[in-house]
């Protein structure tokens, strides 16, 4: 069960099983930066050209402080003692079809097997399908993101296919897979 605390315009904090989810803020910059630097490529951190970025903490702090970021859909996920465990990003994709795009990243891949991750996904479903009336959620992942893939499959996502040799990193070509979940499932 989620307990939602809201002000006039945005969500402040939601209580999940074994943790919390809230809008990301400038103080989350260091935790977010670590996701870029820990040596694990993640599809959710690539730019439009599918290139990895190496942002500084200051750049991320500035980005998270912008009005559109504060009002946007980047959420920080905390455990029950308030430590940031990861981030979740929900974006609108195409307006005419009502699709959304999901990225979820944890500092440790083990978190994907936790009840906290499951409750984050329930939050995503509620927000996407019920509140935003989206009909489908897409998620992209690299061939090395096996824990994220298992997590998505466990929650009903199905593969749309794999784009081959899209990203060159760590001396290797990585594939990019697209998965999706429809509201009717």
């Amino acid at each position: 069960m989620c307990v939602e605390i809201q002000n006039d315009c945005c969500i402040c904090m939601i209580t999940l099983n074994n943790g919390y989810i809230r809008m990301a803020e400038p103080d989350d910059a260091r935790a977010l930066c670590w996701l870029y630097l820990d040596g694990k490529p993640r599809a959710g951190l690539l730019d439009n050209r599918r290139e990895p970025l190496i942002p500084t903490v200051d750049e991320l702090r500035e980005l998270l402080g912008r009005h559109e970021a504060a009002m946007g859909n980047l959420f920080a996920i905390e455990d029950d003692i308030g430590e940031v465990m990861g981030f979740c990003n929900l974006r609108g994709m195409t307006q005419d079809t009502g699709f959304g795009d999901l990225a979820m990243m944890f500092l440790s891949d083990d978190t994907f097997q936790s009840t906290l991750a499951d409750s984050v996904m329930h939050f995503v479903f509620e927000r996407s399908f019920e509140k935003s009336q989206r009909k489908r959620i897409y998620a992209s992942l690299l061939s090395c993101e096996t824990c994220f893939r298992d997590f998505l499959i466990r929650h009903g996502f199905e593969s749309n296919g794999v784009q081959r040799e899209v990203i060159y990193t760590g001396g290797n070509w990585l594939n990019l897979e697209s998965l999706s979940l429809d509201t009717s499932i």
Partner: protein
Amino acid sequence: MSFSTDSYLRRAEREDLDTVVAWMEDEDFQHFLYGDPTRSPKQIREHIVSMLGRSVGHTMPGGLYLIIDSPSQGPLGMISLQNVSWRNRSCNLDFYLGSKGMRNHMMTAIAVYRALEYCFDELNLHRVAAYIYAFNTPSWRIFQKAGAIRELVMRNHIVRNGNLYDVYGYGLLRREFEAVRAQNKSMHSVSLQQMILKLAEVEDDTPMDEAATP
């Protein structure tokens, strides 16, 4: 026949603006163009217009707009290379044949072949991707004949005339394009004409005027 092999590629210039805008006003442009899945056709159009003649030839831009031109027939169409990643050596390819009279399979094959040659032989890319509507059969058939693999199927992904349609994501790797090129060379001739004819072979009775582009 209404095709020409004297066509060549050049960068789009400011002087092309009227021609390109006229193509964009054609309803087929909205109907067939897919491009970047995160941008609407209106955004794509505004971006193209703003980019014409602005990219510098010798730098490494993130997007390139090329005009398919012909000395005998003038500008025939436009090729857009988007999301060019020089790190991953990849790009997304769109092409549009502005002249309806040129939308036979031969002209489409020439456009695709010239664009792919440019991507692999001039820009030294590793991968070319294209998103094509499922109903745009001539376009994805020609892409397949060039060696591309259908990697993604996004079901009921796009709305046209109130109906939902699938979108295919195609990917072509450099080695696959070279294999197709080598195969065509070993058959009879090394001529461009032979390779284009092979690419333009069609297996269905799809009307010619549907041969617009991704």
